[in-house]
């Protein structure tokens, strides 16, 4: 699958028998044990494993919550409270799932920033990257569907606002809205089907993640230097080196997760969602969860309803075009002194957009949102193409090893074991 020949040799007769019928052990060996990984990866590269761990956490806590949750307009809110009060460790399952979603998004944003900063989207990793954008879109859909399920005020009104947005799509908008609602407004049929879809989508995410990891193993990891593996010393086998680093980073990330779960479980949420949904009363400020705030700011920056919708979706879709918008032949921002500055500004603008999304859409906040939205798109449409054309990059190091030790110095210890391919074969 990865292009490297599997070096796995089954030892026992049973193992040989099984391997000749379903070579899954060999597959795991070549993908996660012998698989060569650049030796200069920093902790940004552990977030893939963290994301996989959190997908697992969300699915498992979600399935367990589904044993007790009642997906009806009359029963949902009370069933969630029953989970919190009466189910053994129900409070733990619920808070783990709610805060796990936030942690999932923290990790995905760090992961995406890594891709943008180190040029992981550039050839030959375009499909890998686009699969990642698809995963991100599926995550957004899953999170939106999941947030409606407790049937609090924010659940109901957030669902109303977003499904009203879909009605702005010309020709098919009203039909889509009606099919999502299952009625004439957000109501019981809506929560019922949103629960079903919320249960479905994570399995689709898991499927796309399999494709994502497959595509990764065809090209191999990018690395902070942005240059390919050239010799055995540039790489180390995934196990135990990357494995132990990933486990360490995941446990550290769990400390952050545990802090929110056990001591600040409602901090990332909204108090209004502890009020049962009431179609007659709209909350003073409807806000989505924090991870949607930048897009919310972009949506409200445009006075026209359809324009706002188009711009909001474009803000995500434009990510997929990065491999072709960026004209630089240098991958990593470590060697792109000008573009690196723009990346930090871009990050700052994303934070500001997020903050603006939490403010009321009036006066100076709207103007600031418009400026920041313009800058957001300018980064993709102007900075990415132009920087690559005019920037003088720093000279690239000769090899990965050289990039961290300096030219002419040696590194001790082994790299990839003899007999393993130096790098996964890249076709084309």
């Amino acid at each position, binding site marked *: 699958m990865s292009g490297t020949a599997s070096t796995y040799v089954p030892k026992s007769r049973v193992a040989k028998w099984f391997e000749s019928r379903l070579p899954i052990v060999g597959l795991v060996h070549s993908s996660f044990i012998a698989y060569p990984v650049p030796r200069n990866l920093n902790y940004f590269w552990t977030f893939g494993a963290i994301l996989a761990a959190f997908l697992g956490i969300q699915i*498992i806590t979600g399935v*367990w919550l589904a*044993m*007790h949750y009642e997906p009806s307009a009359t029963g949902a809110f009370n069933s969630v409270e*029953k989970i919190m*009060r*009466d*189910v*053994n*460790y*129900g409070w*733990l*399952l619920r808070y783990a799932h709610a805060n796990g979603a936030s942690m999932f998004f923290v990790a995905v944003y760090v992961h995406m920033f890594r891709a943008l900063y180190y040029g992981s989207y550039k050839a030959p990793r375009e499909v890998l990257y686009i699969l990642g954008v698809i995963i991100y879109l599926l995550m957004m859909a899953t999170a939106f569907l999941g947030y409606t399920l407790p049937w609090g005020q924010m659940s109901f009104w957030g669902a109303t606002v977003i499904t009203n947005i879909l009605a702005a799509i010309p020709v098919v908008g009203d039909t889509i809205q009606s099919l999502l609602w299952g009625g004439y407004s957000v109501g019981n049929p809506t929560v019922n089907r949103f629960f079903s879809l919320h249960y479905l989508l994570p399995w689709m995410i898991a499927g796309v993640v399999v494709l994502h990891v497959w595509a990764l193993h065809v090209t191999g990891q990018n690395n902070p230097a942005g240059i390919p593996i050239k010799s055995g010393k540039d790489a180390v086998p995934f196990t135990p080196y990357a494995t132990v680093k990933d*486990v360490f980073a995941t446990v550290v990330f769990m400390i952050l997760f545990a802090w929110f779960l056990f001591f600040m479980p409602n901090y990332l949420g909204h108090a209004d969602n502890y009020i049962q949904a009431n179609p007659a009363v709209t909350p003073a400020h409807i806000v989505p969860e924090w991870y949607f705030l930048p897009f919310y700011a972009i949506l409200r920056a445009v006075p026209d309803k359809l324009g706002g919708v188009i711009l909001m979706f474009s803000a995500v879709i434009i990510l997929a075009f990065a491999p072709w918008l960026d004209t630089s032949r240098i991958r990593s921002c470590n060697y792109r002194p000008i573009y690196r500055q723009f990346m930090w500004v871009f990050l700052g603008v994303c934070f500001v957009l997020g903050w603006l999304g939490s403010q009321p859409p009036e006066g100076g906040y709207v103007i600031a949102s418009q400026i920041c939205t313009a800058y957001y798109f300018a980064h993709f449409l102007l900075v990415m193409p132009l920087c690559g054309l005019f920037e003088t990059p720093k000279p690239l190091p000769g090899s990965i090893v050289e990039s*961290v*030790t300096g030219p002419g*110095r*040696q*590194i*001790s*210890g082994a790299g990839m074991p003899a007999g393993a391919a130096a790098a996964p074969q890249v076709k084309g």
Partner: protein
Amino acid sequence: MANTTAAPADASHDGSRRDFLFLATGAGLAVGAAAVAWPFVSSMAPDADVIAAGAPIEVDLTPIQDGQIVNVFWRGKLIFVRKLTSKEVTDMKGVPLSAMIEPAAFDSRVKNGHDQWLVVYGNCTHLGCVPIGHQGNFEGWACPCHGSQFDAVGRVRRGPAPINLPIPPYAFQTDTKIRIGEMGGKGEA
């Protein structure tokens, strides 16, 4: 950080310390995994409100007539509360143990001093169907599913049911009130 040359000072000492470190960490991860698994298993146990709803219930016997069978539910299971007529009491006392599939003396089916009151689970002991009262040849119940028959104090008299209708835990609070779900109280044998 990159240019460490090898050759540790004390290879074997370093090796065992390293092994201990690996062992401790591995044990920590295993303990962590087990600790994570526990809440999931525990959350599948009946929750607090189900347990609370399964608390003992009280049944007032005053409105029940001679020969009447009343249905009550406790912990989601059907229970027959039956007031036997004096004829039924005499008949049931007279049945020889040899005639029963699961021999049980009359006194073991009722509480001391309350001969006309029968409290049994209302599911046939064959495969769980609800038998119909005042039917069959034994002044008791007949099950429509596969033909089992029980007598007036719930003893199985014709199969395929293998055992008598089981008796839930109950006790008389007064002569006219029983509490199903816990033992103790007046008249407990």
